[in-house]
């Protein structure tokens, strides 16, 4: 190889390596630097929540890196996604750069992802094994004492509602958690609350004791004040972000729209603990929700905030 061409070749290799390092999850921070508000109780169900993440851009990779760091301290077993998993196309290269590469360390460690479909997702993502949808638009999975219902709010037809009602009837005494793309309550300006979906879904949540709901679509984090005994979270900023889009309203308990974020959740018995963490490792919200049981009569009430957090109230 002539010297000039060899130099050009090595420059390209160097550039490629630089590109990879820019987009690879960062090296972990010292464990002691990570603040954890979750109690790490024995035999608890531990998971993370991400949404609107599939951009393939640097902030998605950086947030994924933060998830890896936190997993050393809080070994979550699975991740639920509230949709917009892969933006702008679903060529194999998109799956690779927007999912496989950013979450490689989690996938390699055996962390399972359970996905739902957002409005930017091609419906055939349901056949992508790492999303654990088993070819279904909507499905349920059980982890410990928690029954999860992954819904497709792009298309809430009578069949899906009938399925949900039947599955909720059979959920037994477990925690029932629903997750999907469109937030039923949102104080963000861009989309706001999906009121028509709320009209068909919320009566079922109330009737069958769903107490916690995760959604995305608005590219912010928001914890809404409990509505009809249900704690609604929006986590739509795990890749995309609409900075400054959250307009604090009477609905808002805590909100954060200054950077990307993800949630960590721990469920032990009748308690659900949550912690929301930004790309830079700030805890922006945290708290605990008490499950209502037939005998306890305990209301979930406003989630008790156990950490000061960096979000606004």
């Amino acid at each position, binding site marked *: 190889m002539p010297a000039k061409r060899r130099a050009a070749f090595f420059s390209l290799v160097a550039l490629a390596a630089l590109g990879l390092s820019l987009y690879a999850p960062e090296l972990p921070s010292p464990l002691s630097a990570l603040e954890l508000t979750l109690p790490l109780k024995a035999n608890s169900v531990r998971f993370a929540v991400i949404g609107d993440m599939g951009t393939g851009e640097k902030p998605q990779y950086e947030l994924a890196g933060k998830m890896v760091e936190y997993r050393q301290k809080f070994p979550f077993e699975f991740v639920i996604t509230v949709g917009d998993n892969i933006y*702008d196309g*679903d060529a*194999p290269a998109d799956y690779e750069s927007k999912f496989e590469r950013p979450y490689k360390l989690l996938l390699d460690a055996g962390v399972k992802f359970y996905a739902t479909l957002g409005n930017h997702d091609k419906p055939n993502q349901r056949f992508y094994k790492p999303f654990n949808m088993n*070819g279904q638009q909507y499905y349920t999975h059980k982890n410990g004492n928690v029954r999860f219902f992954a819904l497709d709010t*792009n298309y809430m*037809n009578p069949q899906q509602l*009938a399925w949900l009602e039947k599955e909720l009837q059979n959920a037994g005494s477990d925690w029932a958690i629903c997750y999907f793309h469109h937030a039923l309550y949102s104080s963000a300006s861009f989309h706001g609350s999906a009121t*028509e979906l709320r009209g068909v879904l919320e009566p079922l949540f109330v009737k069958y004791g769903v107490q916690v709901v995760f959604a995305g679509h608005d590219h912010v984090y928001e914890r809404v004040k409990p509505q009809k005994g249900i704690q609604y979270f929006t986590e739509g900023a795990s890749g995309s972000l609409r900075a400054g889009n959250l307009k604090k309203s009477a609905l808002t308990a805590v909100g954060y729209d200054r950077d990307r974020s993800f949630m960590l959740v721990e469920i032990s018995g009748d308690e659900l603990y949550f912690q929301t963490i930004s790309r830079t490792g700030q805890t922006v919200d945290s708290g605990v929700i008490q499950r209502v049981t037939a005998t306890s009569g305990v209301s979930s009430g406003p989630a008790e905030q156990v950490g000061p957090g960096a979000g606004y109230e």
Partner: protein
Amino acid sequence: MKRRNRVTRLIGWLSVFAVVTPGFAGQPRVPQASGEDARVFKIFTARVQEYVKLQKNVEASLPALKPTNDAARIAEHEHALARKIVQARSGAGQGDIFTDEVTRQFRRIIRGEFQGPNALQARRTIRPDNPSKAVVRLHVNDVYPENIPLTTTPPTLLSKLPELPKELAYRIVGRDLTLKDTKAGLIVDLIPNAIP
């Protein structure tokens, strides 16, 4: 004649199915319709079933798509299925499934939804991310463009239209109501300017 007999038989079976299938909260799954409305719904449903039969026949000639780690296999299957359906329906045109009388009935239902008491909610549901008509007008046998996000189909509208098998979905694109193949990503038929 043979084709007419087949359709009549299908309609007969579908009527039995509609009566015995329990639905959400005890309601029948086929929207309440009587007389002329019920007759038109049945014509539509029969045509939908014919399409699904064709789609399944075409898909049976391809390697089965099962959940896979290989994203390329998913894309290959989708593209091959779309290609073969387009070949099999090369003469298909607008109105094959949404016939004139079906279109009239659908327009009436959609108008009721978007101009009636639920109008505000329905418009709110389709407003975000809804591609404008100037940007895209899809045609029969077009592939749904990957850069256009899905618009949530209003759930109350879905409860009033005939239910579809899982192979198909009603999708609003601009002001058009399209019938979309959920696996091949194809536009199977459409009603232009259905949203008033």
